[in-house]
């Protein structure tokens, strides 16, 4: 994100639109970066104006993760594509037990996109980063012709450092380990779907989009080495996440439907749309697989943090050659919890 201190007219942030010159590498691009992005993200590393950021890192193992955000609609109850792009990548880094340090961001903008919306998104990213006490230290901007993108696409890459002695990985679940969920499921997916023009239902549900790393610190402080792994159940929901872990670790899972928190509004919306909350995306929840002896301490630590207030023990890993995720339904019978087959609801993150 290069920006020299040029004297040009201010961007028309009220009614202006992105045009191809904003991606052409000239003065217009520099101005866009300065007035929109530097303004929103300002920090000493970024403000140096180099094509890269150079910084020292504390000792330990480094974690790196990247994610692209193409959500539609761009603004939804409880967040927008900007805050989501910060939270989502922080969470991917944090699930390794790492302390997130910095983010890099790249934008793909569609010709004609309103500058007012872009500024709103950039400010939302800046606020999300500040709230999470991390910095956006480098970035890139491209503009594509009208029709070649859908408003704005954002990619973020995050790095962090794992404290010594902690080794979390999806292949570490063992039969007997316990599964803890940090709170209610399905909020994000339903909040986004409620704003799809052709679905037309109204709800008060907010996305749960949030940065989870401070909850993770509390968990690591409480039970550290007893944690086997953590993961945030985003696309595909809790069902996909448990199936991924069962494959990676070579175990099965047995969970209990009546222990899984689902808000009544979310349950009702899912009923209406024919969805199972287990398949619906979350952006501010995590599951932890933990050694059985650490369950009580972990639950207590999680419930002491606002984002883990509704944490619940939902089941356990089992010995199962076929790696099934099985669930005792609240009705009393058993069933499999499978990956969603067929159409994933499009572009929820």
């Amino acid at each position, binding site marked *: 994100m290069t920006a020299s201190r040029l004297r040009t007219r201010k961007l028309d942030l009220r009614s202006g639109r992105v045009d191809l010159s904003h991606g052409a590498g000239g003065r217009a691009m520099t101005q866009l970066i300065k007035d929109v992005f530097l303004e929103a993200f300002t920090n000493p590393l970024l403000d140096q104006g180099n094509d890269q950021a150079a910084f020292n890192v504390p000792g330990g193992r480094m974690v790196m993760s990247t994610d692209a955000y193409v959500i539609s609609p761009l603004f939804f109850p409880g967040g927008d594509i900007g805050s989501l792009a910060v939270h989502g990548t922080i969470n991917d880094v944090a699930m390794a037990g790492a302390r997130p340090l910095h983010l890099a961001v790249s934008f793909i903008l569609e010709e004609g996109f309103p500058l007012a919306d872009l500024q709103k998104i950039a400010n939302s990213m800046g606020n999300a980063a500040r709230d999470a006490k991390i910095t956006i230290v480098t970035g890139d901007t491209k503009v594509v012709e009208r029709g070649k993108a859908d408003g704005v696409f954002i990619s973020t890459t995050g790095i962090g450092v794992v404290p010594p002695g902690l080794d979390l990985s999806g292949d570490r679940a063992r039969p007997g380990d316990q599964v803890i969920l940090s709170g209610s499921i399905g909020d994000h997916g339903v909040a986004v779907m409620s704003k799809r023009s052709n679905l037309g239902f109204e709800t008060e549900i907010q996305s749960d989009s949030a940065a989870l790393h401070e909850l993770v610190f509390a968990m690591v402080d409480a039970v550290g080495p007893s944690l086997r792994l953590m993961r945030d159940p985003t696309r595909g929901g809790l069902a996909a996440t448990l199936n991924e872990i069962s494959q990676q670790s070579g175990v099965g899972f047995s969970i209990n439907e009546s222990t899984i928190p689902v808000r009544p509004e979310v349950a*009702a919306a899912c009923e209406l749309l024919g969805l199972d909350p287990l398949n619906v995306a979350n952006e501010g929840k995590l599951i932890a697989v933990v050694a059985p002896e650490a369950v009580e301490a972990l639950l207590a630590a999680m419930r002491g943090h606002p984002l883990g207030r509704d944490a619940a023990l939902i089941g356990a890993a089992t010995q199962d050659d076929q790696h099934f995720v099985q669930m005792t339904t*609240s*009705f009393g*019978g058993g*069933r499999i919890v499978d990956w969603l*087959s067929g159409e994933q609801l499009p572009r929820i993150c």
Partner: protein
Amino acid sequence: MRYIDEYRDGALARAIAVTIAREAVPDRRYQFMEFCGGHTHAISRYGIEDLLPANIQMVHGPGCPVCVLPVGRIDDAIRMAMRPEVTLCTYADLLRVPASGDTSLLKARAAGADIRMVYSTLDAIRLAEAEPDREVVFFAIGFETTTPPTAIAIRQARKKRLTNFSVFCNHVLTPPAIRAILDSPEVPGLGRVRVDGFVGPAHVSTVIGTLPYDSVAAEFEKPVVIAGFEPLDVVQAILMLVRQMNEGRHDVENQYIRAVTAQGNLIAQREIAEIFEVRASFEWRGLGELPASALRFRESYADLDAERRFVIETIPAADNPACECATILRGLKKPAQCKLFGTLCSPETPMGPCMVSPEGACAAHWTYGRFRDKAKIDAEKAIA
């Protein structure tokens, strides 16, 4: 959720299960068919099988509209959609259904056909109004439940004098299918289908009422209990069927009294009759040609009939010969007994009708119940 949670009450279910276990005669077998995919889904989704004693078995019936739609009709829809002037409107669950020659509506869309998902028939009407230069065709499928909304859309199109709207009608009728199952000839090597009673359709019956089942129950001497789609509805219906069998009765009983009456919805029936008449014969995937089992346009609405507007003559297409759906739909085999189940055929790549829709017997078993297969095989091995 009020008015929903009450019908999913686990404690009440266990109490009814205890009564069923007490009243089912131990040395007697009870084999009931739930006709509708909605029931199949509830049974699998809530694990109702686990609440029943071993001598009560549920057989999954053909009541899944996506499943029984023959391949030839999807081929027809694709041919229509490939015409440059046509916009084909369809419900989303039809998109992935495999058609002839490794194609589907989804693949046709990727190849450039204008195929759009709608949530109701009225969305299709709105589309025709908004885009007067397009020939909007609504791909209508389903049992008596979805027929009234199609009829209303056709009436609206007539009233609005929409000349760019038509309907490809594939609506089918429930009672002839139940009759066909009970009437089906013996399958060599497998015997005759054994059905001791029916869990009767929920939503279909809200439209047609309970009366159309009377002749089936009387003629074939099988009890029918109309039941709702919630799990407690199904469990209660099973108890009612057990009691009928124990008492030697074969009546039509109505468990779903909160929605179904004897006469049904007369306004909906009038709407259907105004626009549609019974076809001489229609092919059902898995069941074959069934006489008087589907609807077509009456002459007075012929101008809104896509089949006539686009001169469609369905070419029959065969299913994979290894596919056991025909025997599964008749209750002669279980999904896991098909060689293709879980190997070549899964919800991601369905080969046969029962795997196509989430309400199909194979898809429901794959998605929710297949963990039981290994346990059963192990148990059988242990006994042997």
